[in-house]
């Protein structure tokens, strides 16, 4: 029987926008998110170009709306396991991972994390800080429920060997006046479960991964603590991040900062031929916030071409240069160490000068790669992937959100690198295509 529900896979800005648009049109939506909270990468940024507004401020309301919308069923910490059927009537099995926490009881008070003895690298801060084995990923998480990480929890690891260890989150530490979970929400017996749903259409919005800077060994990422990625700088700059917004590297404020563009973009030597589209602008933004937080610092951006194509972007690029950021045309070939400083070796092709810049912070503008889930998801959905590794749209101009399979649409960076504005546009387009299809194959619900 034709179904009037849409499935959205991925709860980043693309998935959230698509889900909200479809839900607001009066159709039911199931939103599946892999991690414990929706929000995606946008919520990891500290500021967004070219307006420099705070992504938490513009993103959190969307998250809350998704979490409370009567037409949206949010299934977080879950992954699609199988898909059968055709447009108008897909059967989808979703594997919901156990959080070992009863969502109906958890009040997100955080007492469990306080007593948990296990420190784990915090994914949200890219390992620059630690979280506990029982955790809420961040204050604005939706759903706001604690999750136990089975890879690190002492009790869950002990159970495999038949031992009853720890359980401090349940028991608390009374002598220190730390109660642990008073709501009795923690339940180590909760199992993964399979949820089967019927949907009429599917929107894929699984986002992207970042290029692994270790694949460019000439830059010394992973060797020198002073060489970091752009995403790491976002976390360092954010007031709620590991350094509370202070630009600090090796315990010091850097005095000479070099940004290197196109790390893992436009680079056949690592099999990435395409331009990642966002790095020029995110680097410009970062150069500006570093320069405004550290006015005395010398800030240099090394680039091949500056691609400031969006609305207001060229003006923003000019503003960054006005602020004193030096743009030098020419790729950095190598970073090495001399004494305490990093030496960045490049040629300024506009002056023909080959120079060695002594820097104490080097930021790599790593490009966008297809999400690691792409291949498996392409198999499950039977939709094609392009030569660049991203999902392939049905026509590069006239079918930018459709796929080769009727009723399956693409939104956001899973189709190719794009900025937030373009992602939201594509999500809206995918939602609109989904609604048109649902209006034909199913019927709208009463609430609109």
């Amino acid at each position, binding site marked *: 029987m034709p179904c009037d529900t849409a499935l959205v896979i991925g709860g980043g800005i693309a998935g959230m926008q698509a889900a909200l648009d479809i839900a607001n049109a009066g159709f039911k939506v199931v939103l599946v998110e892999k991690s414990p909270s929706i929000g995606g990468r946008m919520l990891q940024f500290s500021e967004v170009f070219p307006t420099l507004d705070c992504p938490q401020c513009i993103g959190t309301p969307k998250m809350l709306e998704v979490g409370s919308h009567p037409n949206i069923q949010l299934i977080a910490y879950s992954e699609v396991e199988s898909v059968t059927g055709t447009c108008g009537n897909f059967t989808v099995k979703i594997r919901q991972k156990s959080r070992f926490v009863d969502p109906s009881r958890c009040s997100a008070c955080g007492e469990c994390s306080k007593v948990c003895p296990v420190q784990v690298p915090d994914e949200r801060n890219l390992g620059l800080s630690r979280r506990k084995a029982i955790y809420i990923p961040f204050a604005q998480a939706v759903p706001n429920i604690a999750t136990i990480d089975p890879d690190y929890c002492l009790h869950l690891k002990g159970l495999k060997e038949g031992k009853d260890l720890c359980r401090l989150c349940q028991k608390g530490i009374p002598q220190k006046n730390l109660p642990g979970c008073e709501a009795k929400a923690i339940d180590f017996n909760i199992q993964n479960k399979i949820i089967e749903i019927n949907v009429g259409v599917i929107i894929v919005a699984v986002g992207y991964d970042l290029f692994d800077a270790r694949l460019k060994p000439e830059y010394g990422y992973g060797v020198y603590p002073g060489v970091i990625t752009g995403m790491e700088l976002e976390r360092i700059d954010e007031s709620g991040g590991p350094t509370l917004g202070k630009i600090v590297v090796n315990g010091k404020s850097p005095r000479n900062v070099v940004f290197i563009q196109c790390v893992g973009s436009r680079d056949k*030597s690592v099999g990435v031929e395409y331009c990642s589209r966002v790095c020029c602008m995110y680097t410009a933004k970062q150069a500006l916030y570093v320069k405004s937080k550290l006015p005395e610092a010398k800030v240099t951006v090394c680039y091949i071409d500056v691609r400031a194509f969006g609305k207001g972007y060229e003006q923003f690029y000019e503003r960054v240069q006005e602020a004193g950021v030096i743009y030098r045309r020419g790729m950095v070939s190598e970073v090495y160490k001399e004494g305490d400083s990093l030496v960045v070796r490049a*040629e300024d092709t506009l002056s023909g000068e080959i120079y060695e810049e002594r820097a104490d912070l080097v930021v790599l503008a790593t490009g966008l790669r297809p999400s690691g889930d792409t291949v498996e998801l392409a198999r499950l959905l039977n939709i094609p992937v392009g030569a660049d590794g991203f999902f392939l749209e049905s026509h590069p101009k006239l079918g930018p959100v459709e796929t080769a399979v009727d009723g399956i649409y693409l939104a956001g960076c899973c189709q190719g690198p794009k900025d937030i504005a373009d992602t939201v546009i594509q999500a809206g387009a995918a939602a609109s295509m989904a609604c048109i299809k649902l209006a034909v194959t199913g019927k709208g619900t009463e609430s609109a």
Partner: protein
Amino acid sequence: MVDTRTELIDRYDLTKCFQCAKCTAGCPVSLKSVLNIRRLMREVLLSPDLQGTFHKSEIWDCTTCQTCTLRCPRGLKPHELVINLRSLLVEEGEIPKTAIDALEGVYKHGNPWGRARSKRSEWSTGLNIKNLTEGDTAPLLFFNCCTTAYDPRVQEIGKALVTVLRTAGVDFGCLGNKESCCGSEVRRMGETGLFEMLSEDNLKLFQNSGVNEIVTVSPHCYNTFKNEYPEHSFGIKHYSQLVNSLINEGRLKFSRELNRKITYHDPCYLGKQNKVFDEPRNVINAIPGVTFIEFDRSRERSLCCEGGGGRMFIEASASGQRLAEIRARDAVEMGVDIIATSCPFCLLNLEDAVKTTGNEGKLVVRDILELVVDAL
């Protein structure tokens, strides 16, 4: 020349170069030589004829370390353009005198050092090495390289390899006086025709010697056999790979400690170009007592010694600090006793640099084979 220009544009895909300058920035000689490989790519593309683009003495400064090519984001081969421009210079006879001597030496005597062919195997007098060109048989060919054959310092490395192979019970043979230059440097000095002749003659000689595998002393021979010779079925190994497997198989055991602080200099032709990074390090680390310290610039970021690309036979147009001297100074600062390496050219250049920087007595340069022999 117009046709040649069009050929060069096609052969090296010059229209695809987006002038990012990753090549020049990574070129080890770009800070001291006027050679600008990025600009050269552009000049060849734009010049109406080639005059003026390649009649430049700095063309001979390139060490063919290949850093430009290995890092080119467009997958182009700037260093091959340099070699091609050199071949145009060779055609016009515009070539440094010392390079002419080296090439003539190879043509006449099979080696670039101007030494007699009849003395090629003199280094092994008394070692009773099987000669595969005189009826002896063995599964492994020990390819010695011209420098190891004639240079008294480098001869020690060849002898060390003989000791190591015999200790491990490896059956091998040589080509005696019939061994000829591999042609690697010949090709890089622009003598393409001579290189083709050498590669064909050498392959024939290998085939007639009845071997399956070849082990080389020099990474330059290793690279050219493996990557530049016409298709063949010989297994090609650099000795560091072979010695590493002999140690892993338990066929080579150490009985003495070497209580030294040792660093390792990656030869470009072994490391960067062929990704043989781990085997030489494994060999050094297998020696008891060794404290191993890495150069900051190591592996893919290793600094060239300036010995490749015919530069052993050509004085560079550029003055300024030799890169091997930077290496020697860095090593002194690191407080090591020994710079180990695994290439005859690197060995000679680094030894020279230790002397010219006045660091004789503070540290020594040794081939990893010599370290192995010391610890047997």
